[in-house]
């Protein structure tokens, strides 16, 4: 049967990645310098007998502490031995010792890690425990103890140190192996009848190779440092020249000839720095290579399963998705922009009486006026990615203004820019945000801090991730009230308990004392609403406040919001993707698409006579909701809309 060879693809990919990693290492100036330095070091260690002008151990009384020059290019030490020759031979022994420790550590660590990670069972727990044991004691103490009984052998102590370092490899390999053990391609190989040994060799080793190489560079540096330390303490083998023993020798003459320390000290320091830099550069390059690959995969997956992706984006939202997805989501409006004809905004006129709120009150004064707002994100290449363009909207006291659109349409970005709490790199690049006469687009951070909470409040979308898990719910409510309103602790506590009761929490004291993970999502959202209104704001920005909740809870939270809005006579910006919510709560609505508002006006007029194609399409999507088919249908029609309207 012509089964595709499961070994082929990952192997090839990996090889290509490795070649390009090495090439990238050469192109990186830091990596190149570190590599050249280490190569020279290895060469001088190999050819030490040829390069050294004298025997490293021959003492000569007349040359004691001879200055550099002549027969001793770098001078002679306190026993009259040639410093250059000693340095060259010391390089040899120091590197060899470190290499021994590395080999021992790598062999034990990688083998044990593979077995424990791949086969698991008892070996897993025993070896993990043993790794913890080895890491519990300072290495030097163990080496000193070993030296006490085994005598001053560099090879023995480096072998022992290798054992002590093996957990570094063990943990690394163990973690990667247990991660890939159940990957599909490993399963496929198993089904195809490959033996465990071949699977490990072909699939698992390729995964752990790069991290092991990086770890090896670090470990070598540590081994060099500890060996130099032992020899510096005078506990090493005195017949073997090493950087540490040279340093020990020079340290005795620190007052008269401090220059003697320069060579061994720089050799140790530069080697350790070169190894660490090499490891860092390799890690950076690997991460950089992994980046685009992951992104491409994400996009492929998105193309194959748009339903999953759209559903995921609209429920979880921009705030909680990974950086990668966030970037993708941000790209979408911009990506769909070129070549697209920008339709003029359809503006429905206000009714002649100036409009009344859903509760029947006339609207108050204008709170917020956003004009021609543009929001952009600075890109690493210096350009700006525009995610909101030419957005204008207005909110009066007592008025609920809905912002509706698909995920990635820029509605949340618009909301955040009013709070001036855009994620890293994001900023208002054009337009003005006027709040009670103050231009927020150009306000200082200090002015914004004064406004937030007190004048403008925010209800987030995902209740759980918006509470700090390390503090009790009560303390998170009390802290802002003390800062913003200047209340005492007991006053703030009293007020917080009152607020919790107001938002419909059955046992306020218990919730007050609880940590966020101890309450349900619906409760957490009520807590967040309580927090938002705790300092009597004039304007409330609610970012899909019900999306993450169960359907039954959604209705309760919506009616709570409506009550509170009427009671406090707040202006509200309500971000949503649900026309049901708009119909339920909003006075005005602005339909957003690809970073722009396409249609805006009183809810009644837009519901009665949508003019923009996109608004009509959105309505067409919810009309089907009338049939009793439940949530699944709603999600699917919406997604179909996504595809049709091209969030490509």
């Amino acid at each position, binding site marked *: 049967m012509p089964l595709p060879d499961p070994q082929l693809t990952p192997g090839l990919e990996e090889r290509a990645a490795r070649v390009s990693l090495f090439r990238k290492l050469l192109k990186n100036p830091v990596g190149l310098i570190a590599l050249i330095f280490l190569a020279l070091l290895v060469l001088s260690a190999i050819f030490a007998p040829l390069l050294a002008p004298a025997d490293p151990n021959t003492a000569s009384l007349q040359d004691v502490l001879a200055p550099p020059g002549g027969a001793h290019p770098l001078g002679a030490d306190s026993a009259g031995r040639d410093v250059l020759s000693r340095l060259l031979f010391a390089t040899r022994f120091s590197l060899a010792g470190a290499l021994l420790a590395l080999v021992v550590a790598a062999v034990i660590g990688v083998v044990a890690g593979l077995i424990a990670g791949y086969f698991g069972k008892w070996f897993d727990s025993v070896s993990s425990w043993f790794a913890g*044991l080895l*890491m*519990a*004691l*300072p290495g*030097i*103490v163990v080496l*000193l*103890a070993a030296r*006490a*009984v085994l005598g001053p052998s560099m090879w023995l102590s480096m072998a022992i140190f290798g054992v002590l370092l093996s957990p570094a490899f063990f943990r690394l390999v163990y973690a990667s192996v247990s991660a890939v053990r159940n990957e599909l391609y490993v399963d496929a190989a198993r089904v195809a009848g490959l033996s465990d040994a071949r699977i490990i060799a072909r699939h698992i080793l390729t995964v752990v190779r790069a991290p092991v190489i990086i770890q090896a560079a670090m470990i070598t*540096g540590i081994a060099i*440092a*500890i060996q130099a*330390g032992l020899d*510096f303490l005078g*506990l090493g083998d005195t017949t073997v020249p090493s950087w540490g023993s040279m*340093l020990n020798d020079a*340290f005795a003459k*620190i007052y008269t000839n*401090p220059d003697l*320390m320069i060579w061994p*000290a720089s050799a*140790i*320091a530069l080697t*350790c*720095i070169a*190894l*660490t830099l090499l490891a*860092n550069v390799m890690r950076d390059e690997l991460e950089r290579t992994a980046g685009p690959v992951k992104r491409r995969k994400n996009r492929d997956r998105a193309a194959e399963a748009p339903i999953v992706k759209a559903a995921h984006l609209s429920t979880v939202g921009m*705030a909680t998705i990974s950086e990668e997805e966030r970037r993708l989501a941000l790209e979408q409006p911009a990506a769909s922009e070129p070549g697209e004809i920008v339709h003029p905004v359809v503006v429905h006129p206000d009714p002649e009486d100036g409009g009344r709120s859903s509760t029947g009150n006339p609207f108050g004064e204008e709170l917020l006026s956003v004009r021609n707002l543009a929001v952009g994100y600075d890109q690493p290449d210096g350009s700006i990615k525009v995610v909101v363009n030419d957005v204008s909207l207005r909110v009066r006291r007592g008025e609920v203004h809905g912002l509706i659109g698909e995920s990635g349409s820029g509605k949340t970005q618009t909301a*955040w820019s009013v*709070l001036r*709490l855009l994620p*890293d790199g994001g900023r208002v690049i054009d337009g003005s945000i006027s709040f009670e006469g103050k231009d927020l687009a150009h306000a200082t*951070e200090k002015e914004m*801090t*004064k*406004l*937030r*909470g007190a004048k403008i*409040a*925010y209800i*987030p979308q*995902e209740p759980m*991730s*918006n509470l*700090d*898990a*390390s*503090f009790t719910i009560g303390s*998170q409510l009390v*802290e*802002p009230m003390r800062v*913003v309103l200047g209340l005492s602790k007991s006053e703030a506590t009293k007020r917080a308990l009152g607020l919790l009761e107001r938002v419909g929490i059955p046992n306020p004291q218990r919730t007050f004392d609880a940590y966020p*993970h101890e309450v349900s999502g619906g409760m957490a959202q009520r807590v*967040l609403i309580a927090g*938002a209104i*705790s*300092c009597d704001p004039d304007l409330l920005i609610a970012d899909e406040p019900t999306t993450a909740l169960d359907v039954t809870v959604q209705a309760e939270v919506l009616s709570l919001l409506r009550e509170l809005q009427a009671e406090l006579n707040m202006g509200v910006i309500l971000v949503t993707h649900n026309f049901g919510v708009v119909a339920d709560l909003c006075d005005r609505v602005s339909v957003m698409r690809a970073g722009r508002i396409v249609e805006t006006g009183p809810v009644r007029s837009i519901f009665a006579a949508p003019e923009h194609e996109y608004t009509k399409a959105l309505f067409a999507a919810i009309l089907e909701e009338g049939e009793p088919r439940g949530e699944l249908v709603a999600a699917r029609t919406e997604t179909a809309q996504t595809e049709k309207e091209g969030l490509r």
Partner: protein
Amino acid sequence: MLRFILRRLASGVVLIVVISTIAFGLLYIGGGDIARRILGQTATAETVTQKAQQLGLDRPLYGQFIDWVSHAVVGDFGTSWFTGQEVIQAISSRVAVTLSLVIGATLISAIVAVLLGVWAARRRGWPDRLVQVISVLGFAIPGFLIALGLVIVFAINLGWFKPTGFVQFATSPSGWLSSIALPVIALAIGGIAGVTQQIRGSVIDALRQDYVRTLRSRGLSANRVIYKHVLRNAGGPALAVLAVQFVGLLGGAVIVEQVFAIPGLGQVAVAATNQGDIPLVMGLVVVTAIIVVVVNLVIDILQGFLNPKVRLS
């Protein structure tokens, strides 16, 4: 919380027992003919046998071990084979010196690392790159080299500190401070490098969390959110690194003490190692293990304090 502490304590005791057993086995088996080594090559076979008898080395190993354990549990680790001093005395007179170095270095590392890490995480750009460079250098260069550099620059060339020697706190507090300043700095630089990276990473992660935006939307300043909320959340992983750093610093202290001629555990350890003074070495291993266990316990309790989920589990 109490159950959590008790469980950690129990696992610490197990660790000490296991380390003692392994160390005892290796030291007494690996030591070969110990009596011969103490007396030297010139000693007669007769005196060697006598010495072995005197030290109890002729008895079976398990008998020696049971003997050692029964004394060790009440704090008696025997006497040094070379000085005749009681092991526990030799160690306890030095342990405070080493601990003051290591704890001082740990505290300084923690404070400086928090400031640098938060600075790098918030500013990014050049402060971030600067902190990265410092971290790489501090991590890569062995502590004793840093110590040597400090001695040459600040003690020998500038003369700000005495290069060697240790002043007891009781004798002169200011003299004590000046005598441990350089060693503590030498040790702290490595610790700072390790912990700063961790703090920087955790703070960058924590800053991206949703609750940071929500807390700031309530009118809390960025500084307040970072130093109260973000750091508390970033504190867990940073403490874990600090625990590892502490073990490293304990080892580093052995060498740094030698550079500054400070009479701490390091000096005892080096002397005992050179002579093959096995009861003393054994005592040192056990005391080190106890210190490590206690520090890890303290860190675990701090973790529980920082993270309510740890406390409940």
